[in-house]
């Protein structure tokens, strides 16, 4: 394996980072700053568990690299995360240190000296067994709020995925990656990691892509690659923001969910005209970040495809369920739900069950056709819960959520939802009366993006 990206083993004077104010950090300077923070993390004379409350910028980047360089165990969290969630994580995992780029107060923590940013040390010793030697990084699972479930990753996971990305995006030291996604988010982090591995430059804008200062920064520093989740592309297209002058731009990447084939085709046409390569990608935090990519020259024919496995990985389908399976060196060690899980080693052995149902075309390109868990098999019959909700919506059942396990479907009805109509739809679908249960809720739990939070519903005791 090549040296890890965290070694920053590139020409000392090469530009590693351009900060929001235009200030530049060389690889040498970034390494120096990282090691200065590493010294603070190492002050306990043992391997520390460090939670970083991330904001993209030099403080958190140096803390992240310092932690990896000195073999600590890091947890990356969005500095904007809900305080209740953060507090429950702190209570659960009792990290030795918390690092933030802005001052913040925590019970049981006191400020400790740090060369930059703000460092807080736990006032009492962390209980629980020592962390597994291969564990390097904890990330939140995509979408979850309030769940202490974290993804456990190793240095090998991180570097392997960065290597794959460098390879298929053909990143070189000439590349200038725009890091507009949060580094606490696996897709965002993968941009940092892959560009550092290639010896390229990270451009860190301060503002959101819907602000003037962001585009001023882009015009001035001319990224060679830009990344976005489906929402970004929806807005970029709608506002015709990709029609502006973007000198130096070479690559667009999209991940973080499904962009509709229509939109994919629109971006592809635009990219073709402008001479950019447009990569549609698929991944999960459970695979560090990336699992598959659609080669740019195939996007036009297959705009709905997630493409092929990244270099170093393999994709295949479960014969029985059609579930998309992935093997590769970037597959996580496992999940962590409590502090004691941090002692666990590799539980997955390189095999990830994605939970997505896929299909493969005759050329070996993959497509996602649904979520495995949104199917229930009741009395030997498969039910698509999303379709069930749609049917109820069409019948005028109001806001309902269908979920459950293979024994029973639960239909949660928001206040005002007409129960007789819900029953009618269930009868129409020939679902055995014993196979479902209706419950009334005031409001359905939802994620910030307004999608229904089925995990939270499933945790409630609707199953008798």
């Amino acid at each position, binding site marked *: 394996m090549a040296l890890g990206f965290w070694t920053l083993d590139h020409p000392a004077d090469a530009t590693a980072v351009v900060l929001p104010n235009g200030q530049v950090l060389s690889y040498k300077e970034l390494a120096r700053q990282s090691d200065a923070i590493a010294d603070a993390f190492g002050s306990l004379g043992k391997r520390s568990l460090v939670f970083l409350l991330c904001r993209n910028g030099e403080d958190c980047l140096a803390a992240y690299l310092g932690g990896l360089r000195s073999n600590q165990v890091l947890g990356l969290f969005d500095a904007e995360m809900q305080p209740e969630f953060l507090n429950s994580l702190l209570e659960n995992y009792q990290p030795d240190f918390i690092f933030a780029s802005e001052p913040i107060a925590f019970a049981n923590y006191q400020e400790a000296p740090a060369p930059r940013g703000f460092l807080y040390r736990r006032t009492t010793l962390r209980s629980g067994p020592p962390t597994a030697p291969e564990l390097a990084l904890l990330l939140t699972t995509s979408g979850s709020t309030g769940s202490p479930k974290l993804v456990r990753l190793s240095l090998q996971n991180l570097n392997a995925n960065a290597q794959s990305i460098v390879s298929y995006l053909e990143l070189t030291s000439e590349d200038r990656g725009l890091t507009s996604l949060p580094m606490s988010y696996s897709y965002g982090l993968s941009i940092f990691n892959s560009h550092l591995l290639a010896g390229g430059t990270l451009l860190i804008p301060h503002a*959101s892509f*819907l*602000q003037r200062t962001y585009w001023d920064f882009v015009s001035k520093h001319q990224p060679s690659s830009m990344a976005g989740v489906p929402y970004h592309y929806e807005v970029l297209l709608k*506002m015709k923001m990709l029609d502006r002058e973007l000198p130096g731009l070479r690559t667009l990447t999209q991940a973080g969910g499904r962009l509709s084939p229509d939109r994919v085709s629109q971006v592809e046409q635009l990219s073709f005209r402008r001479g950019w390569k447009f990569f549609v990608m698929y991944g999960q935090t459970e695979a560090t970040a990336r699992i598959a990519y659609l080669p740019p020259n195939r996007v036009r024919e297959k705009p709905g495809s997630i493409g092929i496995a990244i270099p170093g990985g393999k994709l295949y389908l479960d014969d029985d369920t059609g579930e998309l399976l992935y093997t590769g060196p970037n597959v996580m060690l496992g999940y962590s739900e409590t502090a004691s899980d941090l002692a666990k080693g590799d539980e997955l052995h390189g095999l990830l069950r994605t939970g997505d149902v896929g299909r493969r075309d005759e050329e070996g390109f993959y497509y996602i056709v649904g979520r495995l868990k949104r199917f229930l098999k009741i009395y030997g019959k498969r039910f698509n819960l999303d379709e069930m909700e749609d049917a109820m919506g069409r019948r005028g059942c109001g806001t309902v959520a269908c979920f459950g396990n293979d024994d029973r479907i639960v239909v949660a009805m928001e206040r005002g939802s007409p129960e007789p109509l819900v029953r009618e739809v269930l009868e129409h679908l020939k679902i055995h009366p014993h196979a479902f249960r209706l419950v009334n809720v005031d409001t359905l739990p939802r994620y910030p993006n307004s999608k229904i939070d089925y995990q939270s519903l499933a945790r409630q005791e609707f199953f008798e």
Partner: protein
Amino acid sequence: MQEDKLTLSESELILRRAFANGLQISEESVNDALQYASTPGWDSVAHMALIASLDSTFDIMLDTDDVLELSSYPKAREILRKYGVRF
């Protein structure tokens, strides 16, 4: 004079309601200090909702430059003036 004053406060009220709608906050908490990114909840999703809310409320089509420029409540007032809204 009296009529002018009424017009002033009306546009202001409508703008305030559009902001409350777009950012999902109460009308009382809409004030000149609201700023993109530093006001909790004013993120890119809220921003697009705010733009949609302004477009439909004032029956205009904010262009891309104005969407990018609209980074605070006072700035919104300034931009809307360009579209003929009187405050």
